[in-house]
């Protein structure tokens, strides 16, 4: 139900984008105003969310330690899994964010009934997630060719790397295939794996369908229903140089792509997609396990009622005395 609802919603949004590209009067709205508004929402929204997180302090050191602590000099500490220094924390975070270290912990070679060595579904999740995120980053960077003039060599080099196989014209980008494949897998997994289906919310499917919509419309424009690339760049460049134009040559499919992207940008700060920023802030990962070495201050530490020694001694004085234990006051 959640899946179907999100699919319908994303389809409707795509249709809206298409209509926006068809109707002459709406083109400035969909080609200039909405993208600006969405991007602004993205910037402000992300900043707001990060600042809200920042406002809540981290009162206690609560890293999840995944290896040997640094204690006695002759015991080798696990510097990355249980870092005690800032450098170690940086290493741990780099592994987490670049390679999804913790998710990888799921995978293991195992003997499933019989001698067949197989990797579990969990390994696929790690691979799918990793491919999706890296492909997405690659594609975003590649898209800089639409926003920068002249196009820097780095962007060209990235694209060159990406169309390594040089299939067809325009040549096939590997990341396009990987992204679509990974997204498809992540969606399929939500639908097929009963555990994950049970925990999936409307928002989970919505994000996936939205990303798929953007990917599919982009792939269509590049490989199937060609669009005037020069005009597309003209529009994109217009947006980032604050001299927006909507060239006539830009077709409705491009508007689908642009509108879904705008929706994504505007939706991003208010959704679970903020895990992008959150991953950096997680106190179980980004703190050094040095809480006995260094004192850490809780900014809201407040006094609490305690049962003092004096009260305790007063209450049990006779018994303490009878047991022959020392007293503060006789």
């Amino acid at each position: 139900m959640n899946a179907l609802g999100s699919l319908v919603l994303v389809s409707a949004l795509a249709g809206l984008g298409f209509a926006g590209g068809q109707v002459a009067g709406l083109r400035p709205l969909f080609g200039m105003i909405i993208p600006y508004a969405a991007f602004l929402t993205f910037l402000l929204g992300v900043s707001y969310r990060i600042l809200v997180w920042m406002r809540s302090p981290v009162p206690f050191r609560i890293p999840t330690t995944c290896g040997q602590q640094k204690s006695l000099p002759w015991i080798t500490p696990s510097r990355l899994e249980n870092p005690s220094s800032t450098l170690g924390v940086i290493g741990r975070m780099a592994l987490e964010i670049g390679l999804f270290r913790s998710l990888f912990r799921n995978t293991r070679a195992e003997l499933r009934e019989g001698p067949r060595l197989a990797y579990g579904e969990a390994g696929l999740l790690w691979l799918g997630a990793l491919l999706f995120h890296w492909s997405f980053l690659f594609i975003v960077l590649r898209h800089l060719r639409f926003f920068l003039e002249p196009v820097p060599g780095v962007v060209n080099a990235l694209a060159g790397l990406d169309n390594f196989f040089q299939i067809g014209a325009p040549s096939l980008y590997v990341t396009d295939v990987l992204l679509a494949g990974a997204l498809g897998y992540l969606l399929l997994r939500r639908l097929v794996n009963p555990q994950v289906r049970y925990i999936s919310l409307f928002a989970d499917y919505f994000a996936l369908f939205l990303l798929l919509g953007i990917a599919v419309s982009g792939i269509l424009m590049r490989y199937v229903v060609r669009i005037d690339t020069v005009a597309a760049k003209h529009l994109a460049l217009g947006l980032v140089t604050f001299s927006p134009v909507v060239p006539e040559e830009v077709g409705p499919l491009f508007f689908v792509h642009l509108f879904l992207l705008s929706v994504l940008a505007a939706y991003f700060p208010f959704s679970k997609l903020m895990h992008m920023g959150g991953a950096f802030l997680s106190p179980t990962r980004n703190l050094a396990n040095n809480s006995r070495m260094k004192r850490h201050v809780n900014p809201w530490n407040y006094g609490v009622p305690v049962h003092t020694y004096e009260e305790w001694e007063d209450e049990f004085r006779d018994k303490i005395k009878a047991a022959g234990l020392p007293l503060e006051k006789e």
Partner: protein
Amino acid sequence: MSDRGLIVGGLVLFLGLVTLPVWYNVAAGRTAKPPELTLPTQAKSCVAPVEYMRASHMDLLMTWRDDVVRQGERTFVGLDGKTYAKSLTGTCMACHVNRAEFCDRCHDYAAVTPTCWECHLESRQVQRTAR
């Protein structure tokens, strides 16, 4: 230890990165201008409509290549009813004589690097005209 500086710094870095195109183009003093092409003077129409050629000329060229190399079919009937030879250098570049001022302007603008010139040579005549 307060991590506010670190977080704000990270956020500013992130905002800077995602708005990079704005700064880049501001620094370059750029506005959105599409490339200006030197259009042929002698011919009035192309083998296919302009809109089609703009978006899909690579499809046409790839089809031509396959037809010529694999099927040996060398003639193409254009939209205007005329017959053309399926030839990049012979047909296309007969009108669009200057690669640098026609092909490359758009390709550079859109950061596209077609592989045409890895095999095809610009004919001497074309090069001469360009000069």
